[in-house]
C-alpha cells in the first residue's frame, strides 16, 4: 500500500507551537489498543527527528516516536541526483519526506513537502529519479518490529 500526502505541512499552523499533524500512527484510535508508534509533523520534536525548512511550509520537524520494546526506528537521508531504486524490506514501513527538489516515483511527481508512506508487500521497490533542474533529497523513516514480524498498518 502506498499513501501519498500532498504537502501535509501546509496544514500545520506555523504560529501555534503546539500544533502537530499525524502522518501515520499505530494505533490511530488510542482507546482501542496501546500506543506503539507514530510519525508526526510538529514544532516540538520528542523523538527521532529531522528539521525541515522550505517550500513555503515554515520550519517544522518530522518526528518519530516509538515504543523501543516493540518498534525500532531509523531516519536516513537519501539524495536522488540520478535515477535509482530504493529497496524496502516487506517487514518495514517507510515514510519518505521530500526535503528538497522534485522527483518522479513511478507515475507520480513528488514535490518538496510531499510525504509517501509505503507498507506491506507492494511496492517493495521504488524507482525514483530527479524531475527538476537539480537533485532531490529525501528523508526516509524506517520502522520495523523488534520481534521481526512484518509491520502492518492501515491509515
Amino acid at each position, binding site marked *: 500500500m502506498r*499513501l501519498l500526502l500532498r504537502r501535509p505541512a501546509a496544514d500545520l499552523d506555523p504560529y501555534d507551537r503546539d500544533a502537530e499533524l499525524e502522518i501515520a500512527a499505530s494505533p490511530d484510535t488510542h482507546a*482501542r489498543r496501546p500506543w506503539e508508534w507514530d510519525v508526526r509533523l510538529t514544532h516540538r520534536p520528542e523523538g527521532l527527528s529531522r528539521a525541515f525548512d522550505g517550500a513555503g511550509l515554515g520550519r517544522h520537524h518530522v518526528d518519530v516516536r516509538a515504543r523501543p520494546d516493540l518498534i525500532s526506528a531509523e531516519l536516513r537521508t537519501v539524495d536522488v541526483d540520478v535515477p535509482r531504486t530504493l529497496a524496502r524490506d516487506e517487514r518495514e514501513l517507510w515514510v519518505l519526506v521530500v526535503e528538497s527538489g522534485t522527483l518522479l516515483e513511478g507515475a507520480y511527481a513528488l514535490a518538496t513537502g510531499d510525504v509517501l508512506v509505503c*507498507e506491506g508487500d507492494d511496492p517493495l521497490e521504488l524507482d525514483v529519479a530527479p524531475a527538476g533542474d537539480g537533485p532531490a533529497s529525501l528523508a526516509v523513516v524506517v520502522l520495523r518490529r523488534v520481534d521481526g514480524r512484518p509491520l502492518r498498518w*492501515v*491509515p
Partner: protein
Amino acid sequence: MYVLDAWYVTAWSTEVSRDPIRRTVCEIPVTLYRREDGRPVALEDRCAHRGYPLSAGRLVGDDIECGYHGFTFGCDGVCTRVPAQDLIPKRTAVRSFPLLEKDGWIWIWTGAADRADAALVPDTHWMTDPDWATVTHSFPFACRADLIHDNLLDLTHESFIHLSTVGDDYIYRHGITVVVDGDVVSADRLMPGVAAPPLYASTMGLTGLWDRFHCTEFHAPSFHALHSGITGEGRPREEGYLIKVMNGITPIDAQSSHYYYAFSRNFGVDDQSATEALVGGLRTVLQEDADALALQEIGLQTRPPGEFDVLIAQDAGVAKARKVMQRLLREEQSRSAAPVLEAVTS
C-alpha cells in the same frame, strides 16, 4: 452528523420545473422549482405558518404559495403575502438555499449561505461534452451515505458483487496508491496486462491483454469522480478507452441516500447500441451495489457497541476518507461554536 458547509447534488436539471418538487438533503426538507426566467430556487419545504410543505402549494409568478392557508414566499424565503391579514409577522420567513446548476445537475449548499463557494463544485464537464457519450441513472440507496463512499473508494468489491459486469478475479490482487490532497482523497489501482472486463469486452468488442486502471477521486463530502479505462500495455492512460463515472452521493437521512450517477465514455460516442447496452448494464451494477449496501446497513445497525471494522491495506483510501470527513465535521463544529465578536465602538 452531516457536513453541511458543502455542495450536494439535489436534482437533475430536467427534474426541476415550474411544478415544485420535494427533496430531502441531510434531513433538511427542500422544495425546488424554477423562476419564470428559468433559474432554479430552493426553499425549506415547510411553511413558516404551521409547517405545511410548500411543495404541495403552487407558484404565483416567482413566488410560492402555501397550499394550506396561502402564505406566499419569495425566492429569498421572505413572506410576501398573508391572505388573512395585511400585517406580515416578522418571523414569517423560510430558509432559502444557494444553488448552482451545472452540466445537468443542480447542486445545493446546505450550510451558511455566506460560505457557499461555486469554485468548490467539482468538475463534471464530461456530462455535457459532445466528445463524450453519457448514460445517467438515479438510485435511492437504503443505507447511510458513508457506506457508498466506502464502496467507491474500495473497488475490490467488483470481483464479488459485479462479476457479470465490471468484475474480474484479479482486481483485489493489485495494490493501491492513495493520494491525499486537501479534502480530495484518491485511490488508484493499475492492473497491467489483463483481459478487458465483461462490460468493456462486449461493448467494445475487445480481445487480448490491456492495462486496466481505475482511480476513485473523492471530493469530500459528497462527490466521487471515478477515472477508469483500459489502454495498450505500457501506454499512457490518456491514449486509452476512457470512462468517467460521476457519483453525486446525497444523504437523505441516517439510513438512506440518493445516488446521482453519470457514466461518460470517449469511445463509440455515436454507437446507440453501445449506449443501450450500457444503460442496462450500469443499472445492473447500481442495483447490485444498492442491494449489497442495504444488507450492510442492516448489519451495522445490529452490530454491538464496541465492535469496529477490521480494516486491511486495501481499505487505505476508505480509512483516509473517513479521517477527512471527521476533520470537516470538527472544523464545522468549531465554526459553529466560535463566539461572534462584536465591534466595540466608543
